[in-house]
């Protein structure tokens, strides 16, 4: 009931891959597992605690025609009222684009009527089936088209090309989720502060269960000064990490132990710290050693960093508890 309940509609024709992505992001399915999923009957509700007081209330709406018809008729106020986010999934391979679009329009119409200020995300899904070189092109064409369609309804679409077989899914979803976090800027500010103390290469915040990226120093920097990322780091690194860590977490959970923290020493004198920040967040810190530093100092530094994280904890907890 508390105001921090966020209602997300997950829509799209049957077989477009809604349930699959849901179970990967929120139920720790591996992409492979999703093959076994059956069709969704009517609406699958899932309530996910997210960052302390926030609850994601995800409505995975089965895409079969009979269900769709109901969503737009008898159930419309039930479905479309109080919606924060509509996530509409398109199967790029779909045989009947027109039908898909028709549905999309209906959705927008109802959304505008019942929750006009909802955000609309469009996922062009199953991108892996498209040839690599064609992907961007296809994506842009479709997005333009869809944006045109949605203009009359005053919705600004945010689109992502996604596939369950690579990290693109994580990228899309962390964007979606972040768009829901009210005090995002607070996180960012604190993160910057923290960084200024630590002076790390990069600091990233992950949500605990989904391991979606919440914030990272570099992305903030990018926002502030619009230079598209100067250093030649892999732009998909966050999502990759999410992916990696998540699988890692699963594998250790098989060992009946819980992931707590992790320190990796890179070959190029880089150190990675991953540690619990709060009940709902992990923090990842990348440090590059100054060459002159000796190993001895180095060991110390590890402890210092971990100490710092502990110290930072209460700040971030405060932000979370803010309603």
């Amino acid at each position, binding site marked *: *009931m508390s105001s921090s*309940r966020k*209602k997300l509609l997950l829509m799209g024709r049957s077989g477009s891959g809604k349930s699959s992505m849901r179970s990967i992001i929120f139920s720790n399915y591996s992409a492979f597992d999703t093959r076994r999923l059956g069709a969704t009957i009517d*609406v699958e*509700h899932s309530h996910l605690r997210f960052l302390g007081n926030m609850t994601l*209330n995800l*409505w995975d709406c089965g895409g079969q025609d009979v269900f769709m018809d109901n969503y737009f008729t008898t159930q419309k*106020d*039930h479905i479309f009222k*109080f919606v924060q986010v509509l996530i509409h999934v398109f199967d790029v391979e779909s045989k009947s684009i027109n039908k898909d679009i028709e549905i999309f329009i209906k959705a927008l119409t109802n959304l505008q009527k019942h929750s006009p200020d909802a955000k609309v995300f469009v996922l062009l899904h199953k991108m892996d089936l498209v040839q690599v070189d064609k992907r961007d092109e296809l994506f842009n064409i479709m997005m333009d088209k869809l944006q045109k369609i949605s203009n009359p309804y005053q919705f600004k679409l945010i689109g992502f090309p996604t596939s369950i077989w690579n990290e693109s899914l994580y990228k899309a979803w962390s964007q979606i989720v972040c768009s829901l976090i009210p005090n995002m800027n607070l996180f960012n500010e604190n993160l910057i502060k923290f960084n200024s103390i630590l002076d790390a290469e990069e600091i990233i915040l992950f949500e605990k269960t989904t391991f979606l990226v919440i914030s990272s120093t570099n992305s903030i920097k990018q926002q502030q000064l619009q230079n598209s990322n100067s250093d030649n780091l892999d732009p998909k690194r966050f999502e990759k990490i999410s992916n990696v860590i998540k699988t890692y977490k699963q594998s250790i959970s098989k060992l009946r132990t819980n992931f707590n923290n992790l320190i990796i020493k890179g070959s190029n004198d880089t150190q990675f710290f991953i540690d619990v920040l709060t009940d709902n967040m992990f923090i990842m810190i990348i440090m590059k050693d100054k060459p002159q530093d000796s190993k001895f100092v180095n060991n110390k530094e590890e402890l210092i960093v971990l100490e710092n994280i502990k110290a930072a904890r209460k700040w971030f907890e405060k932000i979370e508890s803010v309603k």
Partner: protein
Amino acid sequence: MSFNLPNPCLLGLLLVISTHNGPQLVYKYPPTLSDNPIDNDLDDDEYKVDDFSDEENEVLNEWDSKHYNFYSGTKKDLLSFLDDQEKFRKSKMGHKSKKSVESISFDDMLKKTVSGVSDQTNNSKSSIQVDSSSVFGVEEDYLVEMLCPPREMCNSRFEINIDDFIYMGLPVHCNDNGSWKKKNKLVSNDDTKLDESLDSPKITSMNMFHLVFIMNPPVIESNYRIDEMYHYVASRLSLVLRHEQQKHDYIWQQVKLISKLKQDFKNQSNFNNLDSFLGEKSSLCKLIIDCYNFISNSEIANLSINNKLRSFQIPVKTEFHSLPQSTVPFLPGSHLSSTVSLVGKTGLINVGETTRFGMDNAMSMMMGNLANQNNDIGGMDKLDEDDTNSTADDIIYLALLLLDDPETIIKDIKAESDSVLANFIRMIKPTESLIRLHSKLQNETNSLMLDIAQLKSFAFHLIYWRRARVIHPLNTRSIYIVSPMAPITINMYNDILTFSKTFPSMPSLAQFLKLLSSPSKKPRQFMAIIPSKDHKDLYLQALSWLLRHGYVTQLHTFIWLKVSRKVKMKVEEDMENENNHKKSKPRISNIHGTDNTSKNTKNGNVNKRISSNPSSYERDIDDIANGIKGINGPEVILEEDEDTIILDPGRATTLERKWIHKIVTEECNLASELVVIFYDILKYMNGKTSLELLLLRENISREDFRRLFSQIEDHIISVRHW
């Protein structure tokens, strides 16, 4: 069939709502709805006898005369059964307080269990509550979705069986305008205006709520038990809740409160059990808990709904107008009297089943309630309207027999000790008809003013809520017999003790009953067994005790007019003299031609009177000839009926009227004033209305009455039964 035994088979209650965050379970009670129904039954029994182990509890049912097992199955041979009974009583003596051992009237049985219930709730405090997320083998979330039906299925009875469990209720869905009122509901205009003004602002996120009753009735009575629960509790309660939601947004406020409390519970220490905590803090949870505890023990549930007291019950079947077949169990202490059919029609009392398979009675009862339940909110509102119901008018000539001590009743029904109702209750005497009470009230200058309508509605109230039983005013001149339903084998053992405690100066219960049934040519008036005038009151009190506990019932007299052959002949001659041209006709056919054949054609249903007439004559012969076939074919002669019994003088044929006239004028030439009386009471000579009631209703002096009957005696055939 065990329809006469209360059996709510209520396993639990769920409150589910549907909001824009999807369906959700707000509250469930009891906290653990186990996958295994058997366990649950055992729990129920544990309420009754705490310190018995489980398998003993199973056995226990067999000793509980309000439980079906008591009557079913194949018991061992009698003597060993009695030995066990002996042992059981002894052990019980050891275990339990006197009170619960003497489970005499149902009220007492119920009291026994209520104590149990409170224990149980206390116990559950200490018990660490396991909130299993599955209800009888179904994951809670999915179950809840099923229990939030689409709008088309709302605002009407909802029922779904999943395997052996039945989920039933009245889901209430709000209208588009956010109002919760049934659209077609009739209400005075000003009322509606007021409501709209109230409603329009508060359009909540909640669009449906549903109080679900979980039951597992025995298959054979499934429909019946569910109907009972729906009509008496589920629908009525839901309607009250809808009303409160409509007026005060009650449910939604409570829902928010509850979810908040569930949070708070974690960081508080006074309560270590969530349910007792919620029960304490949330009125809605409280009423759900109470509702479960009382209804599942077949008790009256007095629920305070948003600080308004409402009562709900599944009426127990303790009133019978005819004797149940030997194969039909009934609650010991039930009351047998034809007056029941009088009140039975009003749906005030739940008339008992008398046949093993028949359910017509039950159904008609249901229909009656369907009518009631339409725009009625909460059991009793309806009752006040009932007294306009003509069928029950006669009640004012009858008396009330309180089933408990007045002060106790006043306390139980939470009436103000000096309220009109309370004083009325104190005044009630089994020897005085309501009308008498009323006139008394009028005379007593100082006392409370109470018009007859109020009086009646009070009476109905007491009857409906198991506080009183309607009887003919006790009278030493009336005849009382030991009721064929008397619970001698079942209750006598305990009652002997209670009786002797209540009436130390009386002969023992056994002795008293013996007196009432001592052989004589005919059953005798009650005064016959009263030793002296001074004993009268005491004996009457004792008598009322017996009535209360179903040991005795009153014999009533029902009469018909009997027309002798002689009379018929005379009438016939007269007729012949009148119209000679019919002389040719053979006389015999003339008689019979006129009466039955004509009647059969007129209203072909039942032949109103037994009298042999040509048409039926042959048929009879055949029937009987067939009947006696096998005896080497003797000739069969049908004895002629001398007499004709007039079944319904109210709707007598011309011929019958002629006969009656003949009887009145010539046969026993009555004095004119008696003739008047005769015709006044003629319509009652149909074997339906008892003379006793007749005397109470038509104010005819016993004197005239006796005179009249002494004269028409030979033309009357009477039967005596309850």
